Structure formats: structure tokens, C-alpha cells
């Protein structure tokens, strides 16, 4: 392979490596909250009751309001 034909490939490879490094530097130190694992929950009481009966558990109803 001649030098003039190899140069674009080398530049491209360099760009890919540099982009990877920049992305890695910009990655947040912590996982975003939306991606973090969350406690399992249901959003209707009938399902909660069915699950509680199956597992013999109590239910914690967390009443919230949007806004």
C-alpha cells in the first residue's frame, strides 16, 4: 500500500480513536437517574392486592400527585 493511499485510512482510524476518547471523557461519572435500577412497583391497587396475596406480603400505598 502506498503512503498516499494509507494516509486517509490512518486519519480515519485516528478520528475514531479520538472520538472514542472524547466520548469517554464526557460520560457522566454517575449513571443517570432514569437508567438506575428502581424498586419494583405497581400502579393500581387491585394488582398490588393480587401480588400481596400471592407473596403473603403487606402493601405500601404511596399516594402522590403530579406537579
Amino acid at each position, binding site marked *: 500500500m502506498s503512503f498516499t493511499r494509507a494516509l486517509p485510512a490512518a486519519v480515519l482510524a485516528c478520528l475514531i480513536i479520538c472520538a472514542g476518547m472524547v466520548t469517554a471523557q464526557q460520560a457522566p461519572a454517575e449513571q443517570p437517574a432514569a437508567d438506575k435500577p428502581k424498586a419494583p412497583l405497581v400502579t393500581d391497587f387491585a394488582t398490588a392486592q393480587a401480588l400481596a396475596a400471592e407473596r403473603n406480603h*403487606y402493601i405500601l400505598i404511596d399516594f402522590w400527585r403530579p406537579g
Partner: protein
Amino acid sequence: MLTDQRVIDYFTNEMVLAKINSREDTALANRYKVSAVPTLIMVDQIGQEVDRIIGYRPPQALLQTLNHYRQGIGTLDDLLSKAKGGGDRLLAFQIAGKYKDRGNVGEAEVWYDKVINAAYPQDSLSGEARMAKASVLRRAKQYDRAMDIFTGVMDDFPQMPFAVTAELWRAIIFRQQGDTASAIEAFEGFVEHHPDAKDAKYARKQIERLKGQPQPGGN
């Protein structure tokens, strides 16, 4: 809270968590007399209430309280059974608070009265109980009775911080009753008496808002 590992483990292995939008499932919110959010209510499989927690608690404190409730410690039933053995005013105050949180006006009143009537009416626990009782009555829209108690607290406890709160509640009750002129006067009195209180800003805003409203009989 939901991303805390202890909370994840707890609601995976120990208890079912149901997050209910109180604006959408109004029937369930009404059934449990939910008047504020967040309200956490622990119930058994048939929906019988064990106890509730109102307001935010950090994960560790929350899980500790839930574990106590599962063991029957600190619940309303637990406190009532202790009160059968005699009990004291502080226990009566705690029981009244439980009924207050459940929206049970009648029982809350009975237990606050036990606190108030069992001692000199001007001791500080009586004052706290009178404030709490007035708050229950106000929420139940028994405005005149609540107003009388707040006024009495202001007279009997002029040096206590809750007398300042009582004065503000009087103004709020006037506003809730639709008596704009008295509400403005009461909010102005509050600002004049307590210009540096943390609620003075709120009171000034109320005055501004009420003065901007059309007055009855005005054009």
C-alpha cells in the same frame, strides 16, 4: 428514594409497593381520606390499614418505621392498647395525632381533649394539643370552632412560637370563609406584629392577592 438499594431490596422481598396517583384514583384516595401528599399507607391484603406515614422520610428511617409497623410497634392499635393500661398525656397526644392523620375528626378531638383537660390549660403540651385540635377542625371546615381555639391560644400563650402560627391561621380562616376584609386586616396585623417571621412574606403576598380581588358590592 426508589433507586436506593435498600429500598429496592425491601420492595422486592418484603412488601408490595403501589404508587397511586391520587388525582386519578380519587376513589382510593377518598377511601383512605388522603389529604396531603406524599402519604404512605401500609395495608394488609384486604386493604385494612395498619398505619400511615405523612411526608417524606429518608430511606433508612422509612424502612425502620415500616419494619416496626409490621411487628405491630407504634401503630394506632399498639398505642390504643397501651392507653388501656392507663397511659399518659403524651401517649394521648400521639393517639390523637394518629387519628388526625387518618382524617378521623371525632376521635382526634376526643384524644386532644384528654390532653387538654388532664392538666393546667396553659401548659405547653395543652397549647400544642389546642393548636392540633384547631387544625383538625379547620380541615373539617368547622371554621368558627377552629377560630375560637386559635384566638384562645393567642391569648393564653403570647410568648410561645405557636401563638404566632395561631395568628396566621386566623387570617387564613377569614380568607377561607370568604371574609376578604377581615382576612386583609388579620394578615396586615400579622405582618405588623411579626415583620421578621418566616411567614411574613406569605402574609404580604396574601394581602396583595386579596386586595387585587374584586370586593363584594364593588364595581
